[in-house]
């Protein structure tokens, strides 16, 4: 009888222990807390975490299928909280992000600086969990844990594959046409009024005994428009040296000043007149926009140049320069890639090189076969752009009717994924 009682007591204790363990286990798996009125929502499912593609590392993308109660069912999900830990068992104390309802992914990323806030070291395993949140901060449901996952940088951005091929094709076209030009093939280019006027304008200045003013604008030496302007200056300076006309080149950027000095000096040396070169023909003024403009305006009013050539990057001062040039009675030839300033040059100057014509000018002025060949490549690239745009419009508008549904998203082929 005594043993039976002991056995019964043991069974009761054992059963209670089992029940308690089961209860704890269930709570550990889904630490949802119920308060009166709000029930925990369904947890998110199919949680995955992968290294973010096409990046410099230090980034992990977490994806999931939203909770069944997100916009449906109990409809009590307000958002999701992404938690991170260094181990599968946790603790998951690190909240790396909170996203609104309907979200299906989150990018946990940081900068590459080690001391930065929230820095994610590469090649370090992390584990993620996503909690479905409700209006009560104590009521939420946690997903399964996913991991281990570590971040690392990629060596090639696959999103830029279209760009990569486009650059290769453009380079090949350029090399092809340059080679053809080298072999002596005749390359036609249509006349450009602004370019043809340069020689006449230099001749005018020589006849009138007045200087030529060459303005680079407010660009810096690294601007492509300024580099194009350098090559134009080298042609202009060569003519100026041959005709023994005075040249004035006031500069906004000191690096441009040094390059321009070299160019003009070389032009005089090539023309066989090294002693005619004046060091102070090319000079620096200041790096303040309107102080520079004031000084150039002053030069125009006092030196009365016969020809003003504006080639490069210009901003609001374009109209001031051009209008002052009109007052001083100069012939004005302008070229810029700043779209907002082109109208002012068109209105106030005698000749304007619009956008791309500035970059073509060096080929026109020198008529060197290599440069003309590269101009041809530019034209073929433009033709390709036209054809692709037309094909794209046809594809988007008619591919559905022709059953070519894979072409409907043709335009996405040109979209660059960063």
């Amino acid at each position, binding site marked *: 009888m005594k043993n039976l009682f002991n056995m019964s007591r043991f069974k009761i204790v054992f059963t209670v222990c089992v029940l308690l363990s089961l209860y704890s286990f269930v709570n550990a798996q889904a630490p949802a807390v119920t308060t009166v009125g709000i029930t925990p929502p369904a947890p998110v499912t199919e949680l995955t975490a992968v290294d973010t593609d096409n990046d410099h590392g230090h980034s992990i993308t977490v994806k999931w299928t939203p909770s069944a109660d997100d916009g449906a069912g109990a409809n009590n999900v307000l958002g999701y909280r992404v938690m991170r830990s260094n181990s599968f068992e946790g603790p998951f104390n690190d909240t790396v992000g909170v996203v609104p309802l309907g979200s299906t992914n989150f990018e946990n990323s940081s900068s590459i600086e080690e001391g930065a806030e929230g820095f994610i070291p590469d090649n370090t395993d992390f584990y993620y969990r996503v909690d479905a949140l409700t209006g009560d901060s104590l009521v939420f449901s946690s997903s399964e844990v996913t991991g281990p996952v570590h971040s690392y940088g990629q060596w090639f951005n696959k999103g830029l594959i279209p760009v990569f091929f486009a650059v290769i094709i453009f380079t090949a076209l*350029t090399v092809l046409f340059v080679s053809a030009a080298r072999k002596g093939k005749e390359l036609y280019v249509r006349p450009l009024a602004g370019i043809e006027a340069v020689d006449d304008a230099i001749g005018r200045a020589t006849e009138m005994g007045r200087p030529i003013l060459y303005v680079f604008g407010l660009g810096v030496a690294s601007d492509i428009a300024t580099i194009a302007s350098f090559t134009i200056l080298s042609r202009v300076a060569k003519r100026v040296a041959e005709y023994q006309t005075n040249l004035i080149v006031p500069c906004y950027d000191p690096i441009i000043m040094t390059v321009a000095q070299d160019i003009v000096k070389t032009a005089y040396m090539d023309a066989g007149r090294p002693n005619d070169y004046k060091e102070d023909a090319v000079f620096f003024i200041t790096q303040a926009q309107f102080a520079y403009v004031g000084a150039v305006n002053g030069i125009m009013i006092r030196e009365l140049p016969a020809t003003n050539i504006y080639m490069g990057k210009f901003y609001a001062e374009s109209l001031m320069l051009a209008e002052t040039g009109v007052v001083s009675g100069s012939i004005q030839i302008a070229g810029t*890639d700043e*779209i907002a300033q082109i109208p002012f040059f068109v209105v106030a100057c005698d000749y304007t090189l619009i956008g791309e014509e500035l970059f073509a000018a060096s080929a026109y002025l020198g008529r060197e076969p290599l440069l003309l060949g590269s101009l041809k490549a530019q034209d073929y690239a433009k033709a390709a752009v036209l054809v692709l745009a037309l094909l794209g419009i046809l594809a988007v508008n008619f591919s559905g009717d022709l059953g070519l549904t894979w072409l409907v998203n043709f335009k996405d082929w040109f979209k660059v994924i960063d």
Partner: protein
Amino acid sequence: MRRQLPFFFVFLFGTFMVVQNFVPHEYSERAKEFLSDWTIIIGIFALALGIWSLIHVSLDKINKRKPNWEYSFVTLVGLVAMIFFGFTANVSGSWLTYFAALMVLLISLWLLVQGILGAGAGVTKAKEKFFAGIGLAAIFTFIALYDKSWAFHFYTSEGLENPLFKHFFSDIMVPLQATMFALLAFFISSASYRAFRARNLLATLLLIAALIVMLRFTPGPWGDLISKTSTWVMNVPNLAAQRAIVIGIGLGMVATALKVILGIERGYMGKG
């Protein structure tokens, strides 16, 4: 070799930066950051050359008594004064010795530079001026070392808080900049007066488009129609032409950059 090496550097750095665009890895990004920082640092050294050019041109004007040579004095005084203010800070509130030091500095720099430029530049008594400049520079150094009411700050940026530096910026530069910008109102009026003539079809198109957009805020019965037409002009034909220009500019820039990297375009590098 002397001439080819720079073009090799152009090719090397150009190709690296093109490839860098396609490589998102951290090492590539750090390299791009450093190379961008190098450009900024080189820029300040180039600015020293620019300032020297400004001083040189101004002094040349003064020495050769070229037209308007008197104003070059003003330019030089403004330049040196602003640099002096930017590198110094007054600590005691007493400005007497501060301005005395500035005057001594201005005169000593004037004499030193005249002396350095020498007889070849038409400077009379260049040697005497040089030594006089040295003497005044010594006096300035003495004042700088022993006068505690102000101090130089090259290693810290207290000079940027110098009230004279700030006042020169806010009371001289800002009004001048704003007024120069405001002159555009007059220039745009004179440009409009000259340009808006219906001489031919192209000028007429330009005139009509400009008028429609200029009058877009007009109130009254026609205001709504003009506003809607203006919006259509900006969003349709304007957008179309701008897109064509942008595509052309983009291809032109790419072609120029490629020519520079491949060494086809060499005009920017003189022979020295």
